[in-house]
């Protein structure tokens, strides 16, 4: 086989699964609480009494930040593994919402209102 003149990096890595994990966590935890997993284990309850900026933080902020970081990284370091984050987010959301078998195997998907696509955007845009 001739040598490759291409300079791009092939697609690799678990970035898509990381994004999918964030989507799965967002499905599990309630809507307006952020719990930092791992070492910190701090429970940040967001109330309306707090500053205007903080009261915008919902459970969808963390995957949102991850997506935003991936957009920046794609522009800076090349599309190779970082654009998988976008695709992984979308695929994971579609799978969890429409195709995932529930525990009893009765019905597919999680059609609850809070997991609709519009809830990924802050309340202003909705």
């Amino acid at each position, binding site marked *: 086989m001739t040598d490759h003149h291409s300079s791009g990096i092939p697609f*690799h*890595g678990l970035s898509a699964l990381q994004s999918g994990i964030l989507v799965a966590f967002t499905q599990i935890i309630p809507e307006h609480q952020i719990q930092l997993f791992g070492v910190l284990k701090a429970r940040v309850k967001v109330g309306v009494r707090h500053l205007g900026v903080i009261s915008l933080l919902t459970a969808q902020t963390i995957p949102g930040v991850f997506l935003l970081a991936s957009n920046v990284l794609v522009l800076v370091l090349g*599309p190779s593994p970082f654009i998988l984050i976008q695709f992984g987010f979308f695929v994971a959301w579609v799978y969890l919402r429409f195709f995932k078998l529930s525990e009893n195997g009765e019905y597919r998907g999680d059609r609850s209102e809070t997991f609709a696509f519009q809830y990924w955007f802050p309340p202003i845009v909705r």
Partner: protein
Amino acid sequence: MPPISFLPFLQTVPWGTRILTALLVFASLAQFLLASVIRQQAPVLPTYGHELPWLVLVPKTSWKFPWTLLTAGFVELNIFEVRRSWSIKASDTLQFAFSLVTVPLACRYLERLWGIRELARFTCVVIVASNIIAFGFAWILFIVLGSDAVM
């Protein structure tokens, strides 16, 4: 602060997560070792990352190897002697470390919640489908832009 002992922590890790982490480490190590071997023996030096078109997803040639849709998801490129810009080296090593820490922790929680079959199915669906989309995306970009840089 009580001393953190490693062994009880290992015992609480369920089976699927162990397999997943083992796959990640094994595939990344395989890529690392095999790539350095291929580099020494190849008559023409392949560009960084393209040494194993049967393991990672190279949009130009991986249509011959359909299993790469799944195996590419487990390979984290890590480089130590390749001549490449420092930012890409740093980001790749960081990605490997980040994946190695976050994915097992998160999958441990999800596996207790979903069970091993659902976790395996979720992993495979997300990795394969996003790789398919990325594959098509790279080909579309190649057709539109006409340049080889995205392959």
